[in-house]
Every structure is written in structure tokens, then in C-alpha cells.
């Protein structure tokens, strides 16, 4: 898959996974990779971006004698998922049809 396209989809996948419950870096990599291959190094900047845009927030939790950083979906993050599903995805579907040879008139 194209790297730029993948980057955008990964952000949504991370948010979508967090919708099921709070999670941490390694778990995110493990569970998203089967869908969209992702490495730990790729995930780091994605999490940083999501945190900076306040789509996720973090907290530390003790786990087997060490501290683990957890990520939690925020209202802004939920809104981003909704925006993707209601605005971006239908648009992507139209683009797909267009690429496959349809005309703009056929889309509507």
C-alpha cells in the first residue's frame, strides 16, 4: 500500500483500536499489524501526533513491577473516527469508483 495512504489509515486504526479500550504500544503493534503491517518505530510518531492533536491522552500504570504507558481515546479522537466514517470513507469510495473508470456523473 502507498506509504502516505497507509500513514493516514494507521492513525484511524490506532484510534479505532483504542475505542475498544485503553491500550499500550506493544499491544497496538501486535493487534493492528495483521490488518496493516506496522513496526514499533512507525507507531511512535503516530502516537506522538495523536497525542499532540489531543486525539489520545496518556497515563502510566504499574504492570508487573514496571510502568507501562497507556493510551486512551478522547472525545476529539472519537470525533476523528466519526469524521472518517461519515466524510472521508464515502469520498474514498467515490474516488475508487472514479479510478475504476466511472465518471463524476455516475457517482451521484
Amino acid at each position, binding site marked *: 500500500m502507498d*506509504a502516505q495512504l497507509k500513514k493516514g489509515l494507521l492513525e484511524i486504526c490506532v484510534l479505532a483500536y483504542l475505542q475498544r479500550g485503553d491500550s*499500550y*504500544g*506493544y499491544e497496538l503493534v501486535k493487534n493492528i499489524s495483521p490488518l496493516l503491517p*506496522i*513496526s514499533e*518505530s512507525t507507531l511512535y510518531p503516530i502516537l506522538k501526533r495523536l497525542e499532540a492533536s489531543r486525539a489520545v491522552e496518556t497515563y502510566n500504570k504499574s504492570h508487573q513491577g514496571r510502568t*507501562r504507558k497507556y493510551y486512551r481515546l478522547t472525545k476529539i479522537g472519537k470525533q476523528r473516527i466519526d469524521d472518517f466514517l461519515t466524510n472521508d470513507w464515502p469520498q474514498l469510495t467515490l474516488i475508487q469508483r472514479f479510478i475504476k473508470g466511472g465518471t463524476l456523473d455516475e457517482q451521484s
Partner: protein
Amino acid sequence: MNRVDFIKALAAELSEKVRPSEIHQLINYYDEMIEDLMEEGYTEEEAVTAWLSKRTDPSSHRNGRGRSRDSSPLSSLFAFDFSTRLPIVGQLIVKCRIADPKLFNNHLVCAFHHWHDWCHYVYRWDRQRCLKSHADGGWFLSLFKSVRCGDFLIWFRAALPDRHF
């Protein structure tokens, strides 16, 4: 290499290239990843090596000229010498490229341009042992034409399963 040595080496390397405020976060992030791998059943050394082998995402390093386009935090900061199993730190500049898997029989292949002796080596890591050899193929040397002394190239086999290492 154990986790503590790895973290020390990583911190030393990062201190030259990353904002101080970012170093602590990066160290914690990768330390946590290594500990999670160990929880999955990896030994400490395996967890460090596994992380090193996965630290670059091949898809993030390709561009039209085949040079590194850094989108991961460490891709241009850290390298690993598979012959000594020690991190390469210092003044080396890291460039990442993906090897043609057909050339390497599914082995992880790293190519180093050593600043001190101007020699080119290929390291083939096949889980059991590390094979080091001088590189004399034209295809290989041509890749170094645009590389300055002090540069470093590393190739990763793109589709190796995670558990391979």
C-alpha cells in the same frame, strides 16, 4: 547485548541528535517495547535483537532515489554490527535501503561503510551465525559512489517474519 547496555548506547546516540526533552520519552518507549517482548517469551538478548531488526520500517525508507527518508525516530540514528553484536555509535551516518531479497536468499543483509578503513563489508545474518565478507560486486560498490566517507548503509530484508530473529 542486554537491555541495559542497549539503552545506554541508545541514550548516548540520541543525546547527539535528539532534543533532550525527547530522549527520555524515546528511551521509555523502546524500553517498554523490549520488556513487552520479553514478556512474550523472548530472552533479553533476543528481545533487543528483535527490536533492532524491526526498528526500521522498510516502507518508510523508500523514495525515488533510494535514500533514507526518515519518518521513524531512530532510523538515522542507530546501527547494529551483527558480527560483534554491538551497536555502532559515534560519527557514523546511517542510511537505510532495502535489499533485493532475491540477492540474499532471505537473509538479513547489512552493508557497512567503515569510516576508518574505507572497506566495504556485507554481513549476512542467518539466525545461527553471522557471515562477514568483503563486497566486491559492481552493484554493491556502485551504491557507495554517492556516499561520503563516514556514511553508513544498511539494508533490511523487507519481508522477514518477526520471529525470525
